[in-house]
């Protein structure tokens, strides 16, 4: 009786720790973003979001007993190549012909190099010893969820971008071909992972998780679409139930004079 009580108490403490150090910080991230987007408390929103993100990233140390914190550990593991990828993409975009915020043209090459290095790091995380290690020398269970999902979705998105550029762009065949090549490269990496074993995962495992990743991608898209549809129906039904707005009275002479004076005061410039 005493032992079972102690066990229950221990389990309760673990749940409380997981809630305090992982789940609440995870909820703080969207909460901070809401504040940020609303414009009502931008600074507070930034602080809350960053604090939540830092606590989620540190959760594998603060509450190591919780299995959920493997996600925080994975995000921490991929943060360096992710930042490198974002830096590279930024350099490639703004090193080109942009009307504002233009960088030096060499930023395009350094950006391309950063993107390639980030992709190589991701590949090394699968085929070399950079694989995220979780407890007791075991691979992080979410790495094999992240990796196929990233490869499949980027293959698909680059293919969409390529076709979109040809369909909607004006004489963009060369650029579309480059995007198609990126899509083929990503598909090639996925194919290699299906054939060759990784450092801590087998090709069989990757092929199994490929199916799960596809199910994940389609499921997530369907779920998000359903939620947005429900939201649109709710708003549409409410707006439809509202009475038509009444016509306002035409402006008085005084109001017209005031508007004209305001307009005159804002239309300036000297004649040449």
């Amino acid at each position, binding site marked *: 009786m005493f032992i079972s009580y102690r066990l229950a108490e221990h389990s309760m403490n673990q749940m409380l720790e997981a809630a305090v150090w992982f789940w609440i910080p995870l909820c703080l991230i969207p909460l901070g973003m809401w504040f940020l987007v609303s414009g009502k408390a931008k600074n507070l929103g930034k602080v809350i979001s960053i604090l939540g993100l830092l606590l989620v990233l540190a959760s594998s140390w603060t509450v190591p007993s919780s299995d959920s914190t493997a996600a925080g550990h994975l995000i921490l593991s991929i943060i360096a190549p992710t930042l490198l990828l974002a830096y590279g993409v930024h350099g490639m975009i703004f090193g080109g012909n942009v009307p504002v915020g233009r960088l030096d043209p060499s930023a395009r090459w350094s950006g391309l190099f950063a993107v390639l290095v980030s992709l190589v790091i991701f590949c090394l995380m699968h085929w070399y010893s950079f694989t995220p290690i979780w407890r007791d020398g075991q691979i992080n269970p979410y790495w094999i969820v992240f990796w196929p999902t990233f490869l499949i979705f980027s293959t698909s998105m680059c293919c969409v971008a390529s076709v979109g550029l040809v369909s909607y762009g004006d004489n963009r065949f060369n650029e579309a071909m480059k995007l198609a090549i990126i899509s083929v490269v990503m598909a090639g990496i996925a194919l290699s992972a299906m054939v060759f074993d990784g450092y801590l995962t087998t090709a069989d495992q990757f092929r199994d998780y490929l*199916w799960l990743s596809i199910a994940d991608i389609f499921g997530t898209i369907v779920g998000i679409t359903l939620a947005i549809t429900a939201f649109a129906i709710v708003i549409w039904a409410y707006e439809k139930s509202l009475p038509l707005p009444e016509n306002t009275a035409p402006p008085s002479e005084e109001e017209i004079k005031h508007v004209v004076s305001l307009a005159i005061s804002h239309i300036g410039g000297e004649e040449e």
Partner: protein
Amino acid sequence: MKQSTPSWKLLALAAVLPILVLVSISVSFENDSHPESFKRFGNAVLTSYVVMGIILIGNLFFYADSRHRPLAPLVGMIFALAVGLALSWALISNDDLLLEANSGLRAQLLSNVVHLLVSGTAMALASILAFGMTFAMITGRERRLLFEEE
């Protein structure tokens, strides 16, 4: 405007075709069926529906600012969310329908949220790569002269 309809179909095909190719190659390696994929699909649908619903309820507060804070849309959206939660509870609790390698309902629900976090991160990163490279290609071309000066 006439071009938009076939283009959308083409885009949808472009999105699905690479996935189908990879699946076909995967099938050629082994003829195993993957019953767990259905469970994953179901869990992903319900989890993303509920999480997106919560985010949209948050957005309703900003919408309400311009509408004298009506309760009707909030109640409607909470009802829609409750339906999603009830479905999740019913389908996960029902024998082996949506329960994956987890001990019970609560573990499965928490696992689903974490799974969505990871797959969402992967999809966001892939989107950064795809959209970033698209814009990089667009801005990479030298400006062309539209009109020759006479």
